[in-house]
């Protein structure tokens, strides 16, 4: 069986990096630093390649005048404009901050606001579709947390706030900790599969 160079690279990189977590020493530290800095650069290049790919597809769409190419024109113009502003002035310059504050922020917050509508509809849908013990517990918790989080008109109910705090501090923590441990176990297993060469997601 021929072992591919990429598999060797992945295993070696992972092994050296992982050893660096547990074994102190100047050698591991220096090698680890080089690898981490290299990883940061490669990750950034991958981001840029993604943006380039996006641009390429939309430019082709515009060139071939496919349906929706007018939207692509919007996209391409905004992409180049923002790129130029940020490259020329820097990411923290007032012009760049203006772009984020006045364009990106309203759009993203608007989408986030739409999520409230979606969540409420989903909640009502859940009530209509399933009525079981899990649903009951789910909504009871949600109601209590909501009422304990938000203020009430004219009155203040410390009991409700205390109950809310207890729910998020004890049973919620128990469930969330189980989820976190499960996720961490899964991440560890997945990482080990890559590090042992069983999984080769880079070979595609």
């Amino acid at each position: 069986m021929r072992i591919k160079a990429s598999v060797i690279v992945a295993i070696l990189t992972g092994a050296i990096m992982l050893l660096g977590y547990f074994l102190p020493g100047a050698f591991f530290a220096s090698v680890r630093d080089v690898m981490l800095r290299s990883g940061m650069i490669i990750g950034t290049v991958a981001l840029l390649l993604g943006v380039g790919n996006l641009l390429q597809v939309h430019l082709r769409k515009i060139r071939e005048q496919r349906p929706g190419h007018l939207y692509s024109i919007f996209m391409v113009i905004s992409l180049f404009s923002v790129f130029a502003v940020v490259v020329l002035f820097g990411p923290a310059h007032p012009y760049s901050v203006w772009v984020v504050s006045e364009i990106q922020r309203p759009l993203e917050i608007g989408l986030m606001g739409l999520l409230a509508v979606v969540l409420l509809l989903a909640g009502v849908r859940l009530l209509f579709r399933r009525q079981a013990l899990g649903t009951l517990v789910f909504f009871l918790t949600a109601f209590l947390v909501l009422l304990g989080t938000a203020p009430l008109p004219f009155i203040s109910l410390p009991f409700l706030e205390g109950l809310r705090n207890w729910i998020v501090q004890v049973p919620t923590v128990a469930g969330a900790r189980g989820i976190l441990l499960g996720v961490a176990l899964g991440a560890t297993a997945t990482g080990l599969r890559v590090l042992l060469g069983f999984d080769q997601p880079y070979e595609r």
Partner: protein
Amino acid sequence: MSDVAAAALGFFLTVAILSYVLGDNVLFRIAAHLLIGVTAGYLAAVAWQSVLWPQLFGRMLNLMAWLDPALWIPLILVLLMIGRSTPRLSVLSSVPMAFLVGLAAAVAVGGALTGTLIPQVAATAVSLSPVRQSSGGVFFDLEGALSNLIILVGTVTTLAYFHFGARPRAGEAPARPLWVAPFARVGEIFLAVAFGALYAGALTASLTALIDRVVFVQQILGRLLP
């Protein structure tokens, strides 16, 4: 003047995005494409300005910097990544991604072990005794002990719900072992509580976002309508 333009732009974009509740429409599409363009443009510029130029291409101009392996190693890997379309280099094109994946896997495993698994297990393994000692002497903390017990039971049973080892049985559906099933049922309740809290939190966060936009629109309308 710029304030007026910014307010008008913000008003238009807010209305365009929220118009999606009426269904997919031209305004929403324009807003969505604008968002993608702005995000991608900003991302590309920051990637160039903050990382690639100062850490890679800008340093190439300094001859002494070539002694640093953190310059030429990523440079080689980047060239391999870009040269994917070149037949001669295509054999090695997966090496940069293999490097990145191996690195990320090791970082994830190391982080999960030291930052989540060990501390969270330790946080669960707490004393269940109501008798506590402090500088003031011995006292009873029944509430604390009960909370610790609930957290312990909830954590274990939630893990039992997401068990990883159901074995297939000939002719039957895979099932948890008999001794795990009751734990899983209890864990399901804790899971419902956690998801209920998550739902409430997500709803709260999104309502806050909607308030931001509604208050903004209200202010604009307040200026326009005396």
